[in-house]
């Protein structure tokens, strides 16, 4: 186990700046997920932590020691690759034991540890097979076994699940989570899948174009996204963005939104809760209101009476998309398409007007120019 500190790390290829000063600090035993679209520099950063890529500027510290000039094999890290990178000519057992063999661990010790790792991952019956004879999930397990057997200070995962089919991916995700809970080792995990990030991470770093957009716990990233990019990237279906104006109505601050109800277009006022009233400098200006689909649903008077953060409005329904548990209800607010998550038994036919309520306590406000959270 080890702490990991990344201080103002930069990477350039020629004149192209891939990473523009990354700062991340990781406690012992944390699970960091680097999340971002392809080309955001997350894999480059992981390779730099592993020592497979040089650092242009800044420092990487493992357990308070600068490792910029330390060879990958001496960093006490283990890495699992997206392509698994199993040695095709070696059996499963030799694959797992190769790292120990290179470190001159004696044969009995090696066999004992390989066996232990194989049993932990339930692949001990495959020891004599070659990688070509294994299924995708089994290969993934062997790749993890190869990392596990070395008992490293830090585990690095480079999109380890993206080559698996959907069902197996969910299974292996849980497996990795269990592994982390059991070993308690510091892990760094690269993915473009926000669900993997949410389910696995103790903290998520969201990257875009070589810059960290937000570095926080999954819950905070979800509830208080630092900017519209993060808000749109995390969550499925994504957060709704509604153009709105901040207004003061009867001494209360809130937002005013355009919408159509019962055939007539008009604006509706949604009051902000008590703790969000400190934005008086925004009165009269345009903002973007961010609403998660599950905080926008059909109106329930009983719930509204106990929770004063819930605000009601009517709106015409455009499209219904049943998913079984919920029906995704498409409406139009402020000229934008908005999705509400509605109980299937409370929906209204498309074209008709329906009563909604929105939890303004869970809503986010963004500056339309900077796209930052207000």
């Amino acid at each position, binding site marked *: 186990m080890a702490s990991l500190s990344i201080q103002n790390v930069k990477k350039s290829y020629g004149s192209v700046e891939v990473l523009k000063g990354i700062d991340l600090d990781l406690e012992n035993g944390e699970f960091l997920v680097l999340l971002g679209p392809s080309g955001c520099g997350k894999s480059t950063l992981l*390779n730099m932590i*592993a020592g*497979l890529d040089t650092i242009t500027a800044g420092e990487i510290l493992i357990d308070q020691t600068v490792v910029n000039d330390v060879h*990958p*094999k001496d960093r006490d*890290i*283990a*890495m699992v*690759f*997206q*392509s*698994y*990178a199993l*040695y*095709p*000519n070696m059996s499963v057992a030799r694959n797992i034991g*190769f*790292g120990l063999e*290179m*470190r001159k661990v004696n044969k009995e010790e090696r066999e004992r540890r390989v066996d232990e790792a194989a049993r932990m991952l339930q692949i001990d019956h495959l020891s004599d097979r070659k990688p070509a004879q294994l299924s995708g999930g089994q290969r993934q397990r062997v790749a993890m076994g*190869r990392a596990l057997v070395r008992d490293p200070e830090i585990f690095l995962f480079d999109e380890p699940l993206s080559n698996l089919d959907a069902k197996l991916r969910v299974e292996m995700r849980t497996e990795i989570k269990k592994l982390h809970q059991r070993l308690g080792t510091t892990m760094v995990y690269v993915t473009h899948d926000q669900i993997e990030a949410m389910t696995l991470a103790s903290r998520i770093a969201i990257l875009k174009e070589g810059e960290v957009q937000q570095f926080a716990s999954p819950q905070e990233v979800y509830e208080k996204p630092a900017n519209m990019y993060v808000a749109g990237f995390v969550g499925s279906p994504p957060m709704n963005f509604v153009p709105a104006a901040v207004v003061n109505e009867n001494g209360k601050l809130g937002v005013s939104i355009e919408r159509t109800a019962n055939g007539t277009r008009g604006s509706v006022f949604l009051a902000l809760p008590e703790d969000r009233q400190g934005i008086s400098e925004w009165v009269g200006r345009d903002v973007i209101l961010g609403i998660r689909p599950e905080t926008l649903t059909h109106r329930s008077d009983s719930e509204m009476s106990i929770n004063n953060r819930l605000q009601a409005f009517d709106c015409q329904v455009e499209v219904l998309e049943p998913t079984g548990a919920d029906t995704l209800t498409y409406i139009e607010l402020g000229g934008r398409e908005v999705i509400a998550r509605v109980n299937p038994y409370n929906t209204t036919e498309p074209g008709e007007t329906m009563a909604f309520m929105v939890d303004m306590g869970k809503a986010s406000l963004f500056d339309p120019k900077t796209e930052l959270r207000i």
Partner: protein
Amino acid sequence: MTDITALPGGKSPWQSAARFGLYALLIIFAAYYILPLIVVLSTSMKDLDEIRNGTLLSLPAEINFEAWGYAWNEACIGVSCTGLKPYFWNSVAMTIPAVTISTLLGALTGFSLTKFKFKGANLIFAMILFGCFIPFQVVLLPMAQSLGFLGVANTVPGLVLVHIVYGLPFTVLFFRNYYVNIPDDLIKAATIDGAGFFMIFWRIMLPLSPPIIVVTVIWQFTQIWNDFLFGASFTTGGGQPVTVALNNLVNTTTGVKRYNVDMAAALITAAPTLAVYVLAGRYFVRGLTAGSVKG
């Protein structure tokens, strides 16, 4: 794979006729190519009387390997009548180290050009590749000077050196193009596991290389064994390879022309390359097309 001849609705009379024509043409071509071999083989088994009295295409009255023994042990190459034997072993002593060393060096160079990429690796590869297009004749004079300077002129080791140098562009090309398709992640994983340059080469790359090794060995063996120009230019007398000796045997202007011995000598000279093709030929095609489709 779908057999396109077995698709439904593909059996009209016109198509049957076309198929007949196709096979007829193929048989004619096959005969055209096999005939010289039959003539050479049958002539090598006749005695001189039979050759003088019979026709070219007639088969030998009895199987008779006398000419083969004569070509191997007694035929006169220039002024020394030792047969092809010593020259054959010269060729073996030249071909085996030259093929082994050029293949190994090609593998190592191909490996470092693809997996341990350094600045200018592509430029160096392009320059090495350029060597493939230099005709033999261009390097004759500078090579002769180098051999003299190194003190290995007119020796088998000298020829080995020439063939290694001339073969490297091809072996590097083969291995480089093969290794470029092996995923970099393998090398990264091995690096993290603690393996160094030679360990990765020995334990991971070489075990993956048999298809391309076979291609390279066949290519190099054929090139080096069949070479005439370098052998004729850089050696004289006892140091000559078998191809040069064969030429001297056949082109001798004294005594009776022994066609059966000439034919036997030609077959002895060609035998090793033929053997390599028969033994490893199927890997050759497989290796050449490796990586062309995703497996």
